[in-house]
């Protein structure tokens, strides 16, 4: 019985391999050659030969394989039928599944570390294809169809809006890029961040927040995003909510933490006390070491020093 099973399995695999080889053999005879492509697609040809894909110095580049047909598949039938978009040739139509379009790219690029984690990318899960962001024929940095962040904003419109807010990272000024923090090709971190935790990512640029401190602030230590938003905020320091109410949503104790601060506690307000907990930088007028302190006694434990 076991032997029959094994033989069945063996012949199945063998048939599969043979059919695959036959299919490959069929393909081998269908190539038209790059000069034939050039005859009709002169502009694209010129872009291609100047592109990284057209470089013969790079082993494994399409230029060292079948040129245009390395990605578009054998074109002899396409030529025989008189050409035309999608006629007996691989195109990257919007209606094609992303996986099908990307498979052409991945047949070479999955051997590179930059695409090593594409299979676990959220972009892949959501049916985004390489072609949606990259051009195979021409382009600037990484052959992107547009520069960051404009390219990313085509889909992530909410982030475009946030990055326009008065408090933001210098994204629209062009001093940082989306891909400084996120790996669009997939990574282990949530939101494809280039780190194993949010704090690890933030500490890349904000190393002074790493501590370790004697007096820690647990929400800070657990996740910067408990108080901050990464892409833009109406409130200074990229805070999600404005102080003092941000602090009070956790610190409701007798005395000033739980007190209500209103228009009366502002510079023009008529309050007779407690205004320095509200005006200007509010709680941070005193509790300035909010990310952690090595200060003495209660002055340290309350992040005052």
């Amino acid at each position, binding site marked *: 019985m076991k032997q029959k099973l094994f033989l069945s399995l063996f012949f199945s695999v063998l048939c599969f391999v043979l059919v695959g080889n036959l299919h490959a053999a069929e393909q081998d005879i269908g190539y038209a050659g790059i000069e034939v492509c050039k005859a009709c697609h002169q502009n694209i040809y010129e872009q291609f030969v100047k592109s990284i894909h057209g470089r013969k110095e790079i082993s494994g580049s399409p230029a060292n394989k079948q040129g245009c047909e390395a990605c578009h598949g054998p074109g002899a039938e396409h030529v025989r039928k008189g050409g035309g978009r999608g006629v007996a040739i691989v195109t990257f139509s919007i209606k094609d599944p992303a996986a099908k379009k990307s498979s052409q790219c991945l047949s070479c690029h999955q*051997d590179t570390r930059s695409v090593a984690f594409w299979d676990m990318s959220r972009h892949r899960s959501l049916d985004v294809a390489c072609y949606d962001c990259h051009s195979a024929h021409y382009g600037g940095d990484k052959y992107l169809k547009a520069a960051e962040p404009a390219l990313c904003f085509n889909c992530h419109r909410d982030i475009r809006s946030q990055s326009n807010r008065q408090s933001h990272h210098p994204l629209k000024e062009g001093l940082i890029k989306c891909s400084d923090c996120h790996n669009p090709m997939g990574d282990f971190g949530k939101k494809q961040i280039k780190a194993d935790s949010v704090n690890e990512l933030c500490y890349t640029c904000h190393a002074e927040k790493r501590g370790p401190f004697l007096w820690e602030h647990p929400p800070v230590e657990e996740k910067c995003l408990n108080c901050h938003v990464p892409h833009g905020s109406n409130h200074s320091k990229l805070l999600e909510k404005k102080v003092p109410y941000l602090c009070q949503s956790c610190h409701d104790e007798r005395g000033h933490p*739980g007190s209500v601060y209103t228009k009366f506690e502002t510079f023009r307000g008529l309050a007779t*006390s407690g205004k320095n907990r509200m005006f200007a930088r509010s709680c941070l007028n005193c509790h300035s070491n909010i990310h952690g302190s*090595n200060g003495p006694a209660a002055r340290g434990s309350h992040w005052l020093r």
Partner: protein
Amino acid sequence: MRSIIIAAVLIFLPLHCSLAADETITADMEIKGLIANVGGSGAKFNEYRDIRDGLYGRFHLVYDSDYFVGLRASDIGYDTQSYGLEGGKWGSFKYQLFYYEIPHNFTFGAKSFYSGIGTNNLTYPVHPPGTDVSTWSDFDYSVERKSYGGGIKLDMIKPFYVDVSFSREDRDGTKATAAAGTSPGGIAIELPEPIDYKTDTLKFEAGYAKKPLFVSVSYLYSRFENENENLHFRNPATENTASATDVRTLAPDNNYYKFSLRGNVKLPMNSKFTLNIASSRTQSKTDLLDYYIADVPGGVVPITLSDNIFHGKIDTLNYGFVLTSTPLPFLDGRMFYRYYKKRNKSDEITTEDGEEILINEPFGCKKDDYGMEIGFRLPANLYLLTAYTHVNKERDREDVAENKDDIYSLDLKWNGLDFLTVKAGYEKMHRSADFRRPDVPPDDPEYIEIFVRRFDVAAAERDIYKASVDIYPTESLTIGIGYRNKDTDYDDVVLGLREAKSDEFTVDADYIIGKLMKLTAYYDYEEVKYFQFQRQLPFNATTGFDPSTLPTPQAFNWEAEQKDESYDYGCGADIYVIPKKLTLKLRHDYVRSNGNVDLTYLLGDNPLPSGRTQDNIDISEWDDYRLRSYAVKAVYTATKKLALSLGYVHEKFTYDDAQYKAYQYVPATSGTNGAFLTGANSNQSYRADMFFFSASYTF
């Protein structure tokens, strides 16, 4: 750096005249003259920029053959200057050197009575300090990052590779910090903190990448050094002399090491198994202060520490496995497990301050999550992605030590027509919290903790709905519309944040009208609401912690609803006045935020404090701002290589906020209305007009 660039240009230019057939040199260079007239806050205008009267230069030179070299520079001589040199041999190796600066300007023309601004010793000659602001010193709150480094990637040993890089960042400047004059119940003192940081980072990665296997090992070392361990300042709230100056501690030096191993292997049935293991350590060492300054004779209050040196040490360990598979053409699958542990091995230090004994509690946490995603490619170009994730979190915290999240999501994409893509999604999160009720009697101040649920760990129900439509009826027209609704309910919260809601709507369009013009436009709108319920109690309260207690004028509940309404829109047109010769570019952008806080005293039959009503306490200016910009630019393509531009930009930013309105540097010199402020973040409004001319040349 400038001399390197000049030398490189001089080397490149002669080369251009003597190139072999397979060698090319391309260049793209631009020089721009700018006149800027800025009124108001120059710091906000130039928050991350350096726009002023002058000449700006940019170029990019590339030599290309078997070997390649690229040299680029921009904003030469300005605070945003950036330089890069990149070269190598195609398919063999690649190196790079870089230098760039990033400014962050907060406030120009801040004021302080202190001398020594920019150092870690702030003092003033005579106590108390003068309150006549016109006699104070002017200074700027501004920080500049200067980063430089280089790296090399070796691909010549394919399928193996090596990537090594080193970078250093110097950060200098001054930012605003503060201290309570006396604690509790004293004045606030805003202080200019000196920033003099240095961060060195070394990265090494080596790996193997050839089907069916990918493996990489990497090591990262980062060292942060702060030139100033403490900020010494004479405290105007105490009568201590300059010999007993107060101290605010600053960020300690630290070392960070990380080692990681990553890899994946292809499996049968179009599957892949991916692995990530990483371990890191962060260390710091600080000499602790054994005193603090208070308003007592001599000013110095000694404390007793179990150890005068604090050794900070945090280790993290994380690992994750992901199995992805596309066993059938219509089925995508992904299963994953991730584990993260932060182990805090820092010293526990006991502090004795008179009768008060304090012990720090090093914070550690653990998180593991697992889940799966299944994508179905359905008929009619429909793609359905379903996912489930379970997250367990454990932390060293007294109130909520454990959370469990169950997250379900569904995403749908339809692209059955050539001119339309429709996406819709829903995500549901249920978070349970293991709340630990403190075992204290009702007259203990800690009793209020029974009712407080902190939003970062509180039980919650979160729903997210999203939808988008992308329409491209012709090749020249694209329209995108999106909507997102997020609603988080913290149902168990008695005191704290109870609800957070947001609604977002976005739309954009691009339209090319033949050879006449290109039009672009966008509009984004968001409304966010936060609702919180709080309790006010006197400083020395021993009763009334329960929010269900009948209110008194001193002990009562209150509510706050913060609302932020934001929108931004923009439109632009590229008008091809003379096709391929003269283009007129027009652009208008507008950003607006309108925030307010609706406060309510829940006093029952008790009257509100004198002069207050439920309406006149509300805050209508809550980070309100408007940013308008108009730009017009004419681009004349004189030859294939030379283009000339002339333009004008107008920007106006108006900022209005209750916390900064009618700003006072010294609102009072004592009590909790008192403060010595420096003007940090005040008066942010500005208006700017910029004229520019540029010439760009490419070959």
